[in-house]
Each structure stands twice: as structure tokens, then as C-alpha cells.
């Protein structure tokens, strides 16, 4: 049961082979057993989860169930959920119980009837690529518990990879869904900016953040995406588009599909075994009827520097609300207002968050704004234009998701720049606002390798189709870490 697809689980629930309470308990038991090792969840509340499962069973019995009603899911602890502690991986919010639901939470639970298994660990305020910046300790990769699961959605990735949950949500600001998906052998999708509402999703970098699904397959992701998307009047950057069924085109043949291979993604800087797996996947696509064409993203080498100006700039302002005045952590001792702010923020934030707040405040300050922030915005435009140009000669772009497989805990923790470079292939996609995916495409040294698929704006359906056909022809995505077997 724990390795079934969402579609199979849905059928099992509909056929009353299992109830949602039973199914949820199964996963809650696994969490209880394995989470002490993996640290994938920061909050589990069996009672709350089973209440939701009971309600789902009632809906199933009443015949008012939707396709995902009763299916359990793990929620990244960046999504505010009413009555749930919502920490964003930070000491600052360790005691914060949200009084309201994020739109994604409302859609998945209140509307679709899914059951929350709890909140997953993450890099503090989604700032990190290894899940080591979490106030609640690092998450361990189920494929090798001495290694990181990637980040920032590392808890979600580890939870699904270890089958502590059939699926999870993630958020992706610079690769935070795709990179952990790659490192944990999952399928993860970051939608086009504006497709999934950001309301209630604690902001890191507002112009880059986007929520999305993380699961075992493209088909699962399509079903999850169907429940997550939609215009939200509470989010001014949410896009008002006609509703589509992302599962509709999954089976479409790939004959004539033009795959763009950016020469910048196939040069130096990527581990050879990772590159070999990626090339093998592309060869598999050619067997499926696709053709390849070399494209160029000439400004992609600027994406990391531009990102590390824009994202910290927005973050420095977004995180100003955490001041100890109204909720969250407040320093126990202070003599005046200034001190309350200083001590609260010095004690409440971890060092990576503080580093980024300082970078952000610096690049926005008087006299530096034009040279850093405005210049980075110009580069962002150039990067987006590169993709527009590339998509004139191809339908989908492919390359590695991450330049390496999962690295060891602590390996890059002391070197922020090395850590930042692990997102070198994913960041440009966020800067351009495009949809991107990572799918399992093989192993290197026994560790999973991810293939990145980048689509044109609103091409989520096409990306899922391209991913699904590959998963019909290969079984990489069905390989499980030993603890999930």
C-alpha cells in the first residue's frame, strides 16, 4: 500500500479496500518509526490527521469525494495551516500557531479532502540547498543517511522518498523543489510563476517563490497540481487563467518533440556520472520519438549572482515583520525597543538567514541600489529573453537538475558559495518565471540523479506529459530507498 500511486490509492479508497483512517494510520506509523532517524517532519499531530481522515471517509461514504479525497499528504512547513504550528524551519516561528489557512492548504484539505500527515522540515525560511539551516536540525537522505536530502524542501523530499507520505508539497524559489527531488529520486514540479497562489505561503523572495507538488511520478504530480492551482483574489500576482486538467495529456506520444539542450548546461561543472545519466535519459527520449537541438542560454552564468541579489533583497524586506512585537520569538531580556529588535532577530534567526538579510539590506541601500538591485533586474530580463529565444527552436529544454548527487552532511555547510552553486541549473528558471521539473533518470555511485525539464510559460501539462512518457518507458522513478522497501 505504501508504494501505490495516488491513482491506485484513490481506487483502493473508492473500492473500500482501505479507509482513509487506515491509510493515514499506516503512514503515521511509519513516521513514528522512521522520523527519529530522518527528521523529515517537524510537526505531526495524529489526532488532527485522523480527524481529517474521518471526515474524508464520511465524504467517500456520502459519495461526495473528489479524486484525492482521503489521500494523505505531507505539507512543507512553509504553508500556514489553521491550528497547526507553522515554523518555516525557524526558531523565530517555533511557537507560531497559524490562525488561518494558506490557499494551497485550503484547496488540498478543505476542498479536495486530502489528509495532512503533518508539517515537513525545511531550510530556515527556505534559504538553503541541503536542509542544514533548519532550526530543527538537518534532514537525512533516505538513500544514505549520512547525506543531505537537498533543500529547501528537504523534509518533503525525504518523507516521500522514505514513503512516510505518498506525496508532499514543496516550494521553489531557486530550485527548492527540483534539487531535493533529484537528490531523493522523486518527481517534482515548479509551476509557472503565478499559477499556484502564494497566499499563506511564508514569503522568502516574493517574485520567485512558487509552490508545487513532489511525488513518486509525473502522474501523481499532475493529480496534485490539479488541486493546487487556480486564480486567487488574495494574491495579486496570481494569474486568472482557464482551469485545465494536467492529467489530460499525460499519454500523448512524444513523436516530433524537439528537445533543446543548452550548451551551457553540458559544459564543465557537472559530475561526470551525473552527466552520463542525463545523456542516457536524452537518448531514451530520442527512442521515444524526440529530436534534440542545441540551444544557448548565453546569460545563464549570470543567474546565480543575479539571484543572490534579488532574492536576498526581497527577503530582507519580507522578513522584517519578524520583530518580536506581535507573534513568534521575542528575546527574553532587553532594555528598550531597539534592543528588543536587535536581540529578537539576532537570537531568532539562524546565520544563513542573517547573511541573506544583510546582503539584501546592502544591495537595496542608498548608493548601491542601482549597481546591484537594478543591474540584477536587468540581468533577469536578459535571462528570460534567452529562454524566449531558445523556445523558438525547441518545445522543452533538458539538462541536469543538480551538478552533483546528494552530498555529505556538513560537506558544504561552511562554504556558502559552494552551496549556492548547487542550484546553478535551477535558478534561471525561477528568474524567468518558467515551469520546471526534475525526474529520476538514473544513479551515480548508488545515489539518484535528476533530469531537469524546463517548459515554456504555462506548459505544465506538456512537461508532465514528457515526464510521464519517460516514466512509462523506464523504472528509475520506481526505485526505492532501502527503508521504503
Amino acid at each position, binding site marked *: 500500500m505504501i508504494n501505490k500511486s495516488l491513482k491506485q490509492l484513490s481506487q483502493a479508497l473508492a473500492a473500500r479496500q482501505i479507509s482513509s483512517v487506515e491509510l493515514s494510520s499506516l503512514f503515521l506509523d511509519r513516521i513514528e518509526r522512521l522520523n527519529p532517524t530522518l527528521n523529515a517532519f517537524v510537526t505531526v499531530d495524529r489526532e488532527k490527521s485522523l480527524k481529517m481522515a474521518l471526515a474524508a471517509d464520511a465524504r467517500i461514504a456520502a459519495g461526495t469525494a473528489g479524486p484525492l479525497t482521503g489521500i494523505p499528504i505531507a505539507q512543507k512547513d512553509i504553508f500556514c495551516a489553521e491550528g497547526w504550528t507553522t515554523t518555516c524551519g525557524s526558531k523565530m516561528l517555533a511557537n507560531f500557531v497559524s490562525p488561518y489557512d494558506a490557499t494551497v492548504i485550503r484547496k488540498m484539505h478543505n476542498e479536495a479532502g486530502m489528509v495532512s500527515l503533518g508539517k515537513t522540515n525545511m531550510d530556515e525560511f527556505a534559504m538553503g540547498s541541503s536542509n542544514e539551516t533548519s532550526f530543527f536540525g538537518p534532514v537525512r537522505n533516505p538513500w544514505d543517511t549520512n547525506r543531505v536530502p537537498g533543500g529547501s524542501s528537504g523534509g518533503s523530499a525525504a518523507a516521500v522518498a522514505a514513503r512516510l507520505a505518498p506525496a508532499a508539497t514543496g516550494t521553489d524559489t531557486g530550485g527548492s523543489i527540483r534539487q531535493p527531488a533529484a537528490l531523493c529520486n522523486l518527481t517534482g514540479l515548479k509551476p509557472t510563476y503565478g499559477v499556484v497562489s502564494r497566499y499563506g505561503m511564508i514569503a522568502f523572495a516574493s517574485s520567485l517563490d512558487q509552490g508545487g507538488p513532489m511525488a513518486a511520478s509525473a502522474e501523481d504530480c499532475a493529480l496534485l497540481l490539479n488541486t493546487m492551482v487556480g486564480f486567487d483574489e488574495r494574491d*495579486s500576482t496570481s494569474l486568472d487563467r482557464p482551469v485545465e486538467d494536467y492529467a489530460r495529456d499525460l499519454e500523448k506520444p512524444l513523436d516530433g518533440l524537439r528537445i533543446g539542450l543548452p550548451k551551457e548546461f553540458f559544459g564543465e561543472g557537472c559530475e561526470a556520472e551525473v552527466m552520463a545519466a542525463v545523456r542516457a535519459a536524452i537518448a531514451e527520449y530520442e527512442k521515444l520519438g524526440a529530436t534534440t537541438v542545441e540551444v544557448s542560454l548565453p546569460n545563464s552564468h549570470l543567474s546565480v549572482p543575479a539571484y543572490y541579489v534579488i532574492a536576498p533583497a526581497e527577503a530582507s524586506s519580507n522578513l522584517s515583520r519578524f520583530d518580536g512585537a506581535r507573534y513568534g520569538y521575542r528575546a527574553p531580556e532587553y532594555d528598550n525597543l531597539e534592543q528588543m529588535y536587535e536581540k529578537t532577530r539576532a537570537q531568532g534567526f539562524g546565520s544563513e538567514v542573517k547573511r541573506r538579510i544583510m546582503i539584501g539590506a546592502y544591495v537595496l541601500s542608498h548608493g548601491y541600489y542601482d549597481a546591484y538591485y537594478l543591474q540584477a533586474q536587468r540581468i533577469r530580463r536578459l535571462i528570460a529573453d534567452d529562454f524566449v529565444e531558445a523556445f523558438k527552436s525547441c518545445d522543452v529544454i533538458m539538462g541536469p537538475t543538480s551538478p552533483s548527487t546528494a552530498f555529505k552532511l556538513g560537506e558544504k555547510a561552511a562554504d556558502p558559495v559552494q552551496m549556492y552553486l548547487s542550484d546553478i541549473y535551477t535558478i534561471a528558471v525561477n528568474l524567468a518565471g518558467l515551469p520546471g521539473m526534475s525526474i529520476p533518470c538514473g544513479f551515480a555511485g548508488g545515489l539518484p540523479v535528476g533530469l531537469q525539464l524546463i517548459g515554456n510559460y504555462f506548459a505544465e501539462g506538456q512537461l508532465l506529459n514528457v515526464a510521464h512518457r519517460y516514466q512509462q518507458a523506464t523504472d528509475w522513478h520506481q526505485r526505492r530507498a532501502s527503508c521504503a522497501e
Partner: protein
Amino acid sequence: MGNVSETDEAMNQWEVVIGIETHAQLATVSKIFSGASTAFGAEPNTQACAVDLALPGVLPVLNKKAVECAIRFGLAIGAEVAQKSVFARKNYFYPDLPKGYQISQMDLPVVVGGHITLQVGQGDKAYEKVVRLTRAHLEEDAGKSLHEDFHGKSGIDLNRAGTPLLEIVSEPDMRSSDEAVAYAKSLHALVQWIDICDGNMQEGSFRCDANVSVRPKGQAEFGTRREIKNLNSFRFLKEAIDFEVQWQINEIEEGRRIQQATVLFDPDSGETRMMRSKEDAHDYRYFPDPDLLPLVISDEWIARVRGELPELPGQMRERFVSEFGLSNYDATTLTANSEIAAFFQLTVAIAGKQNAKPCANWVMVDLAARLNKDGKEIAESPVSAAQLAGLILRIADNTISNNIAKKVFEALWNGEGATADEIIEKQGLKQITDSGAIEALVDEVLAANPANVAEFKAGKEKAFNALVGQVMKAAKGKANPQQVNDLLKQKLAG
């Protein structure tokens, strides 16, 4: 005396330069970026929703009504309403600022340019002045810190947080505190006229910051300015500027330089004192708010708002001149605010266009003086426009004289009757126009005052006035003065 002329002389060597920034609270039902109510006076923190409290994850959504207010204002002052404007974050920490930044507009404001024509001074000394506006932009208000009643701690009330404001920035076009007050009053009247602000200064709905500098007359460049913050009455505005100007002149004359600074006015001492110098100025790290798309205003939207605008003061002023033959001064005075204009228009509508000039005089002079005496606003006038028009009609048809009319007006004011006619009737004030009756009175007076008659005949014109006075006295003021004059002249000549 010596002091005054010395001061005058000193003042004459200096030119005062004033620019004003005004925060007008927009009269929307809900806040600028959330659905919470903007009503004043509720229990602390009962009108602050998740967005106003800046809970983690919440996002701002722009209130279209606030944008419409800005468009109305832009159209009313002949400004350009920007097709695209951008909201920016102004970052600073303060407990009444929940997000740690204020959403405002910086590089691209919603309203650019425009001007306001105002009248400075009264009567013969009145002159017209055009003040140019730099810009007006939309922003959110902060909450309030409450420093009392919390045992050494401060309380925060976030009811006001997120209330929509239009910040209106003038060019440094004003040259005296009188011009500054006239500008503030015109602007105050205008925002109420176009119904975008309730103008309640006590509740903080309309507050001004004055940027003040002085320079030697004839000097082209401006002096260094100091900004007086948060003036919430016209009197304080005038007092603060007057004090500040004198202070700056003294500083310069004593050889010191003015340092750019922000100052506060203390109404109790009548003095301004420094709040922070330029060196302490924050770096607000403005940048475009990534949670809000650029505000795009279509031509259609502007056209629709234009169609909904009432007749503006300038248009009405011109119409009063052309339609009613009023002087520019009268027309300007009568359009100083929407209440006066409405009162006057209603009075004329009842009394008739041909009586527009007396209507104007009664509203501007007699009614204004009486209101002033009781400290009342025109909206609270005990004499209604209909009552006043009824009174003016009785003057026009010679039922009463102007002098008697003043008595009737006072009686109406005191509620002695519902209409002028009722009071005239009840108190027997109807003018005597029967020439037989007047002639009898004239004859009586001539007979009883031979001395005056003799003086008049000896060439003393004053004696004539004395005789008129006697006749009017005998008639208890009710005789038609023109008829009395004519008859007296006739009899004395005869």
C-alpha cells in the same frame, strides 16, 4: 512701535519659501490592501485583519476605490493620471508598522503635476495665487502607539494600519504663512468637494507637513529647509510657520547656518523643536513591492471617473461669473467649499437669478458674520437657504427695507418664525409704501422741526439727513427710504 517696524524691515529683506505635503485619508469603506474596516474610533485592534497584522504569508490586494479617489483628485487639479504607477516598499522598523515596511509609491506616483488656484486674504487685499503640485501618491497609514496606561510599556493599536492615504506634495510656491494656510484650506475644501476625504482634522484625516526655508530677497536659490511635521489644524500651521520663519531669520542673522532637519511644533509653547537632523535620516531602502503588480489605469477608467465628478470649484467659479454676473472675488469666496457653494446655489435657485448679487452678499457678508459670531459652520446655520431666499425676495419686492431685513434675519436666526413672511407679518414690519401715509409722516416731521428746515434751506445738506431720520423714526423704520427721500426733497423744494 520701534520693534514692530524693525521686524517689518527685517522681514522685508527676506523671502519665505514654503512647500506643503499633505496626507489626506481616503474615504473608503475598507483598507487599501485588506478588507478590514476603516471606521474611526473602534476598540483597539478590532479592525485589523491577518493582512493588517502582517501575519506570516499574507499578501496585499489593492483596493480599487482608493485608486478611484486618486484619479478623482488628479482630474480635479488638472494633473496627469499616470497610466502606470508602481508601489514601493519603504523599509523601517517601528512597532506601529507591522510589516516592517510601508507600502507607498516612490519613483512612479499615480498623480503627476496639476495646480490649485486659491484666494489669499479678504476684501480689497485679496489676491489670486496659483500653487503647482508636484505629485500625489497612494500609500498606507501606520498604526498607533499608545504610551499611556500600560505601566511603563507601550500599547499598539493597529486599527489605523493600512488605512488608505493620498500624499499630496506641492511645489515650494508659497511665500507666506497666509498663503500656506490658504493653500491648505483650498486643498482641504477640494478633497471634501470631490468626496475623497472627510476632512476631519481632529481625527487625523487631513494633516500637513510644511517645508520652510528663507532666503534674501532676490536670491535665486532656495535656503536650507526644515520640515515641520504633522500639523493638524490651520492655526497650528500658521503659528508653526511664523515661529519657524522668525527662528530661521534670527539664526542666519546671528551668523549660524540652517541645517536640514525635521522638526515638531509644540502648540503649548508655540515653538518648533528638532526631531531629527539630516544625518539621522533613515535609509528606507525603497524598492518596487514584488507582491503588487504595477498599477495600470486605462483611459476608459479615467473617462468613467471623469464622468462621475461633480462640477469642480474652478468650473463653478467661472459659471457664477458668467451666469450670475458676480465678481471674481465673490465667485471665488462662494466656491471656497462645497457647503458654501451649495447654500448659495440653493438660495439663488429659490430667490431667482435676478437676485444673485444680493444672495451672494447675504451669504458672504451677513450670514458669514453671524455664523462667525456664534462659531458655527454654514452646514449648521439656523437660517436655511430657503429662509434666506424668502427674505431676499421680500427686499426685492420692497416689502421690507435692507435695515428691516437685518432684523428679520436675526429673528429667523433665533427661530422666531418659520419664514421671513411670517415674521414680517407677526411683527408688523411690512414697509410703508403708501405715498399718502408717507406724505402725512413727512408733513408731520416738517411741521415739528422748523429749525432743521431752516438749516437745510440755508444750504446745510446734513439737515436733510436729520429730517429723513425723523421720518423713518416716526415710521418705526418701515417707510420705504426712497419714497421718503423723494417726498422730502419735493416738499423742501416746494
